[in-house]
């Protein structure tokens, strides 16, 4: 359909004003995304009043620039110091960090950037061609369908984990249990908060991620008997070689396809997509370098997927007013202030805005690459700082970052506890990635399960009476059954396996 509309969008997005705000957003986003703590939500909140004085297109271009800039920045920290900025970059931390340790941080960062921009281009075309019909997908997904999809995701994460199945399963369940802390959506009851008001909204993802991944990693590195410097091997080329480009091409395309699809489902999309892309990659990657041990595919696919999902998630946001995450909720707020109400008519009522935004996403991704490729050298240099200086800096930034998000001392204690927990997990051979997946998806799983049962007045038949939900659950059962078969178990992939200490 409307490629002429897309041209209209590009015309709007390529004005000097739009380009400036796009650049500003991408720049700010990268800057705040690189360090844990203050995330896109806080930044957008701070900038919201400023956007009041901008035009609607400039405002939303800048805000979305911050959004995907911070996502890219979050991947940077995941690769460099193993602190995923948000759920969607947890997966990137597995192979990306391993690559960085091998001296290939530059290649990993470039792969992430290239994967993002390629995925962004495809997702942009997809939105251009099919935005309206695609918005119907979200309407097809009611509570039972979401529940079935998330069940499948969680079961797949267990099946694909490398270490012992019971241990990965235990981690998923611990993650779900941690996610239960806080106010129950259905009754308002505060669960497992021990009377602590700051726990009323649960434990934040940043706390878990910074504690278990970031600080846990610092303890583990200090505890390692050998060389502590982050880069143990000679720093290799900063830019991917021709062979590496060939290696990442197919994973990027697969990641894009998976991400574009899952991004249409508000809530679960972005996180599920990077996990799903990584799991899918497991089916394809052959050869001596294995996924989980610093494979370039393990960075390319999930990064492409989460970027594609981030873009297609604008479809339910703009056409249904459904925010996929707090950042999207803020953007709806920014639009509403401008007098534009997301809804089915937004495309026809505000074509310049809609298509301008779509075009600017693509331009923004290009800007991100241009902005970040020169920075890669800087990041890699950062890693060469002796660990005895770097470690206290990482700890200080983690603590300040977490305190800065909510001004809560309780959260600082929490990350301290999770750091110890993360180290214990490592010592006893538990993999933290399934825990994070359980933590991120747990609340959705519970919410949708209970909602479905409220609607059906307690009858579990609702899950099998609806075709999409029934199919997804059947698939879950198949995956589970496959896990029991020894032949398949031997081939079971190494998705979440963390590398041993250096």
């Amino acid at each position: 359909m409307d490629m002429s509309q897309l041209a209209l969008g590009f015309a709007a997005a390529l004005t000097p004003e739009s380009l400036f705000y796009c650049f500003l957003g991408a720049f700010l986003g990268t800057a705040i995304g690189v360090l844990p703590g203050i995330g896109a939500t806080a930044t957008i909140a701070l900038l919201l009043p400023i956007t009041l004085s901008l035009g609607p297109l400039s405002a939303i271009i800048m805000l979305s620039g911050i959004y995907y800039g911070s996502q890219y920045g979050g991947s940077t920290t995941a690769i460099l110091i193993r602190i995923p900025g948000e759920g969607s970059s947890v997966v990137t931390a597995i192979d990306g960090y391993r690559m960085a340790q091998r001296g290939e941080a530059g290649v990993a960062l470039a792969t992430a950037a290239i994967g993002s921009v390629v995925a962004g281009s495809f997702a942009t075309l997809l939105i251009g061609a099919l935005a309206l019909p695609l918005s119907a997908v979200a309407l097809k997904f009611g509570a039972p369908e979401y529940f079935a999809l998330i069940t499948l995701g969680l079961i797949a994460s267990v099946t694909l984990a490398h270490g012992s199945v019971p241990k990965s399963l235990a981690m998923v369940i611990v993650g779900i249990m941690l996610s239960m802390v806080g106010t129950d959506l259905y009754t308002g009851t505060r669960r497992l908060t021990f009377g602590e008001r700051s726990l009323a909204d649960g434990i934040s993802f940043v706390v878990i991620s910074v504690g278990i991944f970031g600080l846990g990693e610092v303890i583990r590195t200090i505890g390692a008997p050998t060389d502590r410097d982050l880069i143990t091997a000679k720093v290799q080329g900063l830019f991917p070689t021709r062979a590496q480009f060939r290696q990442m091409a197919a994973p990027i395309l697969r990641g894009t396809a998976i991400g574009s699809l899952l991004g249409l489902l508000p809530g679960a999309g972005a996180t599920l997509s990077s996990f799903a892309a990584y799991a899918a990659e497991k089916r394809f990657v052959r050869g001596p370098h294995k996924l989980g041990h610093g494979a370039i595919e393990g960075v390319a696919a999930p990064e492409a997927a989460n970027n594609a999902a981030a873009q297609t998630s604008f479809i339910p946001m703009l056409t249904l007013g459904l925010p996929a995450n707090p950042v999207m909720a803020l953007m709806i707020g920014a639009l509403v202030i401008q007098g534009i109400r997301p809804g089915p008519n937004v495309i026809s009522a505000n074509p310049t805005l809609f298509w301008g935004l779509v075009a600017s996403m693509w331009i923004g991704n290009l800007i991100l690459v241009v902005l970040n490729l020169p920075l890669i050298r800087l990041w890699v240099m950062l890693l060469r700082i002796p660990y005895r200086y770097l470690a206290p800096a990482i700890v200080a930034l983690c603590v300040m970052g977490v305190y800065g998000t909510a001004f809560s001392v309780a959260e600082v204690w929490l990350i301290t506890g999770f750091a110890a927990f993360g180290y214990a997990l490592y010592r006893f051979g538990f993999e933290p990635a399934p825990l994070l997946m359980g933590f991120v998806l747990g609340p959705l799983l519970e919410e949708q399960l209970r909602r479905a049962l409220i609607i059906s007045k307690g009858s579990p038949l609702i899950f099998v009476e609806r075709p999409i939900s029934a199919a997804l659950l059947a698939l879950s059962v198949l995956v589970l059954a496959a896990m029991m078969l020894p032949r398949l178990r031997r081939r079971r992939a190494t998705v979440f396996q963390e590398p041993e200490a250096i």
Partner: protein
Amino acid sequence: MNRRHALMALAIASLAVTGTAGAASAQSWPTKPVVMVVPFAPGGATDVSARLVAEGLSKELGQSVVVENRTGAAGNIGVAYAVGARPDGYTLLFATMGTLTTNPHLYKETFDVQKDLVPISKTFEVDHVLVVKPSLGVNSIQELVALAKSKPGELTYGSAGIGSSVQMFAVMLNMMAGIDVRQVPYKGSAEARVAVVGGEIDMVMDSPPSALAQIRSGALKALAVTNDKRNETLPDVPTMAEAGITGYAASAWGALLAPAGTPQPIVDRLATATRKVLADPAVIEKYKKTGLGAVSSSPEELRALIAADTKRWGDMVKAAGIKVE
């Protein structure tokens, strides 16, 4: 990176200033930035309206008024923070009907809204509209009530969480019409609305501007607005009272308050300034875009409103048996 440091330093510095400076005298007030605590996330209707009021007050007072979002626990975290702040006029609270008048019936908290806060002015009002899915086959409240009575406990409404106006207004309809429509909670009214469009649930009380596009396209059917006068966004939709639910009149609202003990001259000056801000045509226009009505009040009117609604929702919570453990 520098940007982030600057942001954080700024935030910490502003906190330090608020925390340590002694009580300024009411005459010279304000000599430094005033913090307006908003207990909800940025971007929502409450936040948007708070920012517009803060912007206006900054001009009126000649000092910047900074919005600070302290979210969580259904707004109780922000309220508790404001209650605990020094009553020197440098910390204000921008709260809502829910946080001030329904939460006290639902949660055990350490503060008492009516004792620990002083009212300054009402700041916005927002009507809701009852929308149903077209496949329900009802065209009026009367038909809906008849259908609900014919199958008690079968129909469902979406709520935006326990104690939300979206829930309370539906509970009120249940009580006044003598019907039993079951609650299905969602994370926000947008999710609930989409569930009605998708046919998962039967109805929701939504804000008129949010639902407008889908009402026009026929994806939703509007039955009645909750206030006692018609809504200008939906002039053809009758009020609940007109549609036959006699005595039904409710609108959600927001208000500006300060910690108890804030000097009276400061409260009075804020009330006057707020009234002026909310009479500004530019502000009214921006409010309208957000779907809010610009309304102000005297501190006494607000005090009476809080008392009246606290009683009304308390009765409703009790009668409907809503309980939070």
